[in-house]
């Protein structure tokens, strides 16, 4: 096909690919996720995350945010889920349906929703489990790093995690993730069930981790206001699809996001369902 207008030599193709991939740490290309072979949860989700970004994934309950994270971290498998279509590229390498061990060793760590501590292990032992990806090699420095970000944990290293408060546990599980030297940290609703002041503190620390460690972060949140404050880019999910994306600044100003996530009605007063257009949009969203 000599008359084909785009004929790349393999080298050019490779160069282009390298140039293209350089900034993108993670790419989801049109992935579908099915649980138990029948329940389709994600229907073609595409997103990309650049190095050192904080990308926020917003959406209501059941939109597929957590499933998206699990697809990336490989935790779908134990729950009988699988990526059936599309590809997950991490540093240009296909990662879909790999085992969690392999994925964590590549530097992707998910901090699970609902905190999930090891209840019968002490704080320090909990943190030590975070060294599993490198088989427990020296960890003292990492402990210091975690205590540097979360000074509250230093005072209770010998306390059983089962007896810690929600805020302490959230710090613990993020710290536990940090112990694994993640390049990409997936945080699933770190604000869940925490007092507003704690949420602010923890989000501040997340931002610092991102800036000081250079860790790329995907942040799944219901608390859109806080998430958009620290994120650089955001996606909105609904019914297993991405319905909107944009820079965090643009999202904050978006009227739909404002109304349905930030709780500000357009008219300023109580929400009016007489406005049919808004109602229809709302129906589509929630």
């Amino acid at each position, binding site marked *: 096909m000599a008359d084909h207008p785009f004929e790349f030599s393999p080298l050019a193709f490779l160069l282009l690919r390298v140039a293209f991939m350089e900034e993108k740490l993670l790419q989801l290309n049109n992935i579908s996720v099915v649980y138990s072979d029948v329940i389709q949860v994600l229907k073609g989700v595409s997103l990309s995350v650049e190095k050192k970004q904080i990308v926020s994934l917003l959406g209501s309950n059941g939109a597929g945010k957590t499933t998206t994270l699990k697809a990336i*971290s490989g*935790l779908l498998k*134990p729950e*009988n889920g699988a990526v059936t279509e599309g590809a997950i590229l991490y540093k240009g390498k296909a990662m879909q349906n790999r085992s*969690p*061990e392999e*994925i*964590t*060793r590549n530097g992707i*760590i*998910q*901090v*699970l929703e609902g905190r*999930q*501590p*090891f*209840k*019968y*292990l002490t704080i320090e*032992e*909990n943190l*030590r*489990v*975070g*060294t*599993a*990806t490198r*088989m*427990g090699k020296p960890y003292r420095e990492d402990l210091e790093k975690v205590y540097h970000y979360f000074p509250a944990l230093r005072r209770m290293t010998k306390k*059983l995690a*089962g*007896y810690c408060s929600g805020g302490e546990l959230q710090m613990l*599980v993020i710290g*536990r*993730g940090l112990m*694994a030297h993640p390049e990409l940290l997936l945080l699933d609703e770190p604000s869940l069930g925490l007092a507003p002041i704690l949420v602010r503190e923890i989000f501040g620390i997340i931002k610092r981790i991102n800036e000081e460690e250079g860790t790329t972060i995907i942040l799944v949140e219901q608390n859109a206001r806080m998430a958009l404050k620290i994120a650089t880019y955001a996606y909105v999910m609904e019914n297993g699809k991405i319905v909107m994306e944009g820079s965090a600044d643009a999202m904050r100003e978006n009227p739909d996001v404002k109304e349905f996530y930030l709780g500000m009605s357009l008219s300023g007063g109580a929400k009016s369902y007489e406005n049919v257009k808004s109602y229809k949009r709302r129906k589509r969203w929630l």
Partner: protein
Amino acid sequence: MDFFMQLLVGGLSTGFVYGLSAMGFVMIFKSSSVLNFAHGELIAIGAYFFLIFVTWAKLPLVLAFLFTLFACFLLGILIERIFLRPLIGENLIFVIMLTVGLAAMFRGLILLFWGGNLYTYPDFLPKALGVDRGIVHIPPVYMATLIIGIFFLIVFGIFFKFFSQGIYMRSVADNQRAALSLGVNVRRVFALSWAIAALVAGMSGVVLGVINGINVHNLSAIGLKVFPVVILGGLDSIIGAIIGGLIIGVLETFTGGYLSTSLRDVVPYIILVIILLVKPYGLFGLTEIERV
């Protein structure tokens, strides 16, 4: 008083052997929540391994013992690889039923090779090991058991408390999903816990073989006695297994001495029922930490 002391020492000695046997059982339950019904058979296999190494291969004692431990360790890994790995992620009841099947298989294999005869080891323990002071009389076997038991208790204590692999094993037992999310190799943890359990079981098999002689039926019956011991001590507590074993052992010999020998074997199961009624987590078992 003489009689009492005699019974007490006898009870503590057998109790310690029970505790040792139960330790391996607890190990598997702790890491994977599997009740291992083949534990008695693992004990028996350990005893027969030692028999092979000592009487047939005529290896020196220490070497034979180490070989036995090693063979049991490998057997544990093999069991996990071949039979249990395909069942990871399946309902727990399948795994437990599988151990029932394994028990039948192992018993059949032993019967096939050795029959139901009673074998004995050559007398190898030095007499000096025993304690014989006035009314306290402890045979060498029990002293050896005590030493081995305490040694392994300390080793496991250190392993689970300070070594990374030990902490990973506890983390899997605690919250498997979270352990997976941090990249803990759950299959390795399961393999290791079966290996360690088989090793401990084999060790107690050797001890029991020295005490009672080697016979499949007698040895695998201990596997059943493990249940009252671990229920009493707490299913997930290693120290509980030892203390549960001691209590059951003492109660057994006291009933045998003061009440009737025929009641002896019933007592553990009566205790089992009572404990389940009043303290289902056992003496040292972890009660569920509930927080909302």
